[in-house]
Structures are given as C-alpha cells and as structure tokens.
C-alpha cells in the first residue's frame, strides 16, 4: 500500500484505471435517477460510455506493450480478495463494449424519444448504465463468483430494457422468456461455481486454474464443468438454447437491440473462453472433456440452420436476430478448434460481428423510426426516400456476408485458414455454404429496398412522405460501419493483436 502512495498522480490514475472503468458507470447510474431529466441522463450516459471507451483503449495499449494487469480490490491480494485481471483479450472486449455503448447511446436520443414515454427516459438510461457496468464487469473480473454477480447486474437491467419496447405485449413476453431462460442459465453457472468451490476451496480464477489439475479426476469438477458450460451456452444463445434471443432482439427498443447485439452475447463468449482455456485449462476441457465434440457440431448446425431460418423471416429485426445466432456459431466454431489460429479468428469475429451487427440494427432502427414497421414488405423501394440508411444497411450486409475489403472478410478468412490448419476442410466448406445463405437473406432485403417495383408517386399518394432519418442517427450508424471498414482494410495490426491475445488466453494466467 505504501508503494501506491509514492506514485505520481499520473501513475496513480493509470494504476486505478481497471477500477475506474467499472466504478464510473456504476456511480453515474444513480446520478441519472437523482437528476431525473432525460437530456441530462442521455448526455451523462453518452459521456460516461465515452470515458469508459477511452479508459479501455488506454488499458489495451498498456497490456499490449506490457504484462497483464492485476488489480486487487480493497487492497486484498489475490487468493483472498476479488481481483481484476486484464490481458489483451478482455481489454479488446472492454473496448468493444464501451465503444458500442458510446455510439449507440448517442444514437438513442431520437429513437428512444419515439419509443418510450418521456418520463421513463431517465430510468431507461439508468438501466443502460447498469447494463454497461455489468458487461464491463464480467469481462474484467478474475473472480468466479464476481462473474455471476456482474452477469446478473447486466441481465436484470437487460430484462428491463427489453420490456420497455413499445410493442406490447410482445416486449413483455420476450423479456419474461428471457428472464426465465437467463435466470436458469445464471443459476447453472452459480451451481457450477459452487461445485468448483467445493472441490478447490477458492474462487479466484488464477487460483482455481492452479488447483483444478490436482482434483481434475473428481466427479465434482466434472459436474462443475458441465454446469458452467451449459449455463454459459444459454447466455451465449448457442444453437439449441437460443430461443430467447430472436424475440428479445425483435421487440426491444431499437437502441437496446443495437446495444445488445454487439455486447451481451459477446461478453458471455469471452467468459466461456476464459473458463475453458484458463480456469479449467485447454488440456482438461478439450482433451479430457472433449468439449470440441459437443461445441463443434452445435456450432455448425447452428450457423447453417439459423441462416436458413433467417431467410424465411419477414421482420427485419427478427432476420438479423437469427443471423446473430448463426454468427455466434462461427465464433464458437473458432473457439472449439482450441488452437491459436482458431481462437484469434474467434476474437476477430467477436469484434467485427459486434460492430457490424450493431450497425445493422441501428440502420434498421432508422427505418423503424420513419416507417413504424420493418416488415420486409413495407421496405419497398426505400432507397429513394432513405438513401443513406439503406446504403448503410447494404454496406453492413455486405460486410456480414464477407466480401473482400470488408471486416467480415477478414474474420471469415481467418476462420477458414484456422480450419484448414487443422485439416478440417469440411468446416471451411460449410462456412462458405453458410456465407451463401447469408447472401440470400441479405440479398432479399437489398432487393426489396432497392429494386422492388413501386414508384415514389405511390408513396406520396398513400399520404406519407418518408424522409431520411435524423442526422444523429445515421451519422452514428456510419461511424460504426467506418470503424469496421477500417478494421477490414487495415487488418494486419488487428490480426496480430488478436494472435497475441490468443496466445495469452492459451497460456493461462500470468
């Protein structure tokens, strides 16, 4: 502790960054309740998320150039106290979550105003900040029980955010179904952590990773492994337990679905990686428990089947939700290869898909803002009235398909390379098949918005002139798209970074 006192102010700030990124949104959330003003709450949310993004960027630079950071909460050192641990992989997740939160919260001003009664806005942003706190906390903590606590903070606020959607009673039912599924998932995780504690007597992840090999043969650890895996898969919305996700994304307020699409499931995938590779150990998870044999088939069925299901959807948000489940399949396929290349491909896709899918949902939100419905039939010839939004959607869609020069191409390229490295040519082939399916469902939307026969006169004759979405909305949508474009064109540094991150995850805690 005395060492801390002797540092200069700048060093002190840097030392406390891991705590600040969690505490800041946690402290601003109650302030929103106290001020009780929608504009204040909105600006506080956007500014706080922005500061969190800056902190996350600083942390990423720190861990990229140096060793992973350990931060002991309350000054209690690692096995007895709660510890925050930051390496490249979770610094990336922190940056992704906080920057998506920044952009989407800026975007949300108009859409929230339309979808939610004004007197509830300050509560909406409070829940938003708590959700952000939870998501960041899940990524940063190195304590198994703390993961559960942050998971529930973010889940509970997510239930509220979804229920605020204006399509009643669908939003309520979507939220309730998610509540039941999500709580079962979280309870499974809690139970698994309990079994781990029973077997090892510790909750610190680093400590767990040292003690689990000593008791690896015991049935307790096997049961813990099973419960944690299944619980996390529910939270991830992996293929057979994905049912809560389409409803939740379709009926949530459009800002919320944009935020969740980029963050909620991604954070859970990170936790899965952390538990499988670091806490239980790569050898235990993939050689003894043969996790690949479970995850890989589910991932493959997931991304093929869900892409097919997406083709038949008539609501744009639902289509995107099913596509999200399919994309989660890619990420899990990368994780289940258990190689450096596979893991790095998974991380690349987590970031790229987070950006792209958030942008797509934001573009959809713009359409919803003007049209009041994003049923595929109501999008006819939208390009003539909302060119910027439709081109944003088309651009995001192309990136989702994975054409060259886009971010989606980089992630698929890395995934296929990783599969071929393992001699899994069939997986590479199936990924290509699924990309073709993505062409179909994105193509369906583009065809409807750009090339469907209906003249603008008819639009006017039906009594409504549709104009472009508010500037704030399309600008923030394009910011995310340009970010993903940057990652697509200038991908070398990013890929190198994820490879370094994958090495750290495979190497365990340092």
């Amino acid at each position, binding site marked *: 502790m005395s060492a801390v006192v002797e540092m200069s102010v700048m060093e002190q700030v840097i030392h406390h960054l891991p705590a600040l990124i969690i505490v800041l949104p946690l402290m601003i959330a109650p302030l929103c309740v106290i001020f009780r003003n929608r504009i204040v709450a909105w600006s506080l949310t956007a500014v706080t998320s922005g500061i969190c993004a800056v902190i996350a960027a600083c942390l990423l630079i720190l861990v990229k150039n140096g060793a992973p950071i350990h931060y002991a909460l309350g000054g209690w050192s690692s096995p007895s106290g709660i510890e925050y641990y930051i390496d490249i992989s979770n610094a990336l997740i922190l940056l992704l979550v906080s920057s998506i939160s920044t952009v989407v919260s800026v975007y949300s001003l108009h859409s929230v105003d339309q979808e939610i009664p004004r007197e509830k806005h300050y509560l909406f942003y409070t829940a938003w900040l708590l959700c952000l706190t939870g998501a960041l906390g899940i990524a940063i903590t190195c304590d198994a029980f703390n993961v559960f606590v942050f998971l529930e903070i973010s889940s509970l606020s997510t239930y509220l955010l979804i229920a605020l959607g204006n399509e009643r009673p669908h939003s309520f039912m979507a939220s309730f179904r998610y509540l039941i599924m999500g709580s079962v998932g979280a309870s499974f995780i809690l139970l698994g952590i309990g079994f781990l504690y029973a077997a090892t007597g510790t909750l610190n992840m680093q400590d767990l990773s040292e003690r689990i090999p000593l008791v690896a043969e015991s049935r307790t650890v096997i049961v813990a492994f099973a419960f944690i895996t299944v619980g996390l898969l529910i939270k991830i919305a992996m293929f057979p337990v994905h049912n809560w996700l389409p409803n939740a994304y379709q009926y949530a307020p459009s800002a919320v679905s944009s935020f969740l699409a980029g963050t909620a499931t991604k954070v859970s995938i990170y936790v899965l990686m952390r538990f499988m590779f670091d806490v239980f150990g790569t050898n235990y998870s993939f050689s003894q428990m043969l996790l690949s044999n479970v995850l890989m088939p589910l991932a493959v069925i997931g991304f093929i089947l869900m892409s097919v299901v997406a083709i038949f959807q008539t609501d744009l948000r639902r289509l995107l939700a099913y596509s999200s489940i399919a994309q989660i399949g890619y990420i899990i396929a990368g994780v289940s290869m258990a190689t450096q290349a596979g893991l790095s491909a998974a991380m690349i896709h987590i970031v790229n898909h987070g950006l792209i899918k958030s942008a797509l949902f934001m573009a959809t939100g713009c359409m919803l803002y003007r049209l009041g419905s994003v049923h595929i039939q*109501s999008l006819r010839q939208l390009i003539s009235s909302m060119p910027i939004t439709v081109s944003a959607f088309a651009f995001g869609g192309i990136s989702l398909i994975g054409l060259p020069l886009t971010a989606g191409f980089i992630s698929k390229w890395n995934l296929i390379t990783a599969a071929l490295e393992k001699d899994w040519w069939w997986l590479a082939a199936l990924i290509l098949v699924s990309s073709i399916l993505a062409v179909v469902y994105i193509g369906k939307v583009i065809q409807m918005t750009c090339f469907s026969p209906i003249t603008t006169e*008819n639009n006017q004759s039906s009594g409504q002139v549709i104009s472009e979405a508010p500037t704030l909305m399309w600008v923030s949508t394009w910011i995310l798209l340009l970010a993903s474009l940057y990652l697509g064109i200038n991908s070398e540094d990013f890929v190198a970074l994820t490879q370094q991150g994958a090495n750290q995850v495979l190497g365990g805690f340092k």
Partner: protein
Amino acid sequence: MTTLLALFNYWIVIILMMTGLYIMITRHNLIKKLIGLSIFQTAIFYFYISLGKVTGGSAPIIDPDVTTYSNPLPHVLILTAIVVGVATTAVGLALIVRIYDNTGSIEEDDIREHELSLIKDSEQRINKSSMNKTDQG
C-alpha cells in the same frame, strides 16, 4: 445406506432443484413458472449454505472458547445471490402484471394465441397496404 443418509443435504438440493425445473418446464401459468424458478434458485442457495458447514464447527463469530468455526464465505456469497433472486422475482412479477394488463391472462397458451393474432393482424395490414401500392403502380 448410511452414506446416503449422511449426504441428506444433497438429496434435498437435488429434489428441490428438480421440482423447480419440472415446474418451469411443464406449467404454462407464468406465475407458476416464476415460482418454479424461485424453488430452483432456493435449491442452489441450500447447496451453498450446506457447503459452508464444518462438522462440529460453531457460528463464525470469534470467541475464545471456540476452536472450529463453520466457513462463512458461502453464506456471504449466497446473501448476494439471494438478493439477486429477490430482484429477479420482483422483475418477473412486475412483467407478469403488465402482461396481464395487456392480454387479460397469465396462461401462456392464451397469451401466445393473443400474440399470434396480433402478429397476423399487423401482417395482413402490411400486405394489404403494399398490395394496394403495387396495384396502383
């Protein structure tokens, strides 16, 4: 037999947990589902609490006469989990109240019917309007 009885806490946990899970899966009444969830969570709380008991240990309050204490950590952990459980139940009940206001039922089948009819209505409306547009064109 004695080992089975000695592990009675686990039996209680398993029975409660399966009861909760069964209720959640089979009941179509939303409130019953939520009760099932609560029972399920309670089973996990029991599991943690019984985990902390040390044979012959007393309550973990420092006292010169006592040498063995029970482990307080699981209790502290589960205090947090109980609070989370209460919050979940409250949110769930609030949702059910709103669902009842909107649909007039808390039976999942009725609600689903209601939802489907709403979706059908809106689809018909949209198809109709787009049909009209194309006809005019």
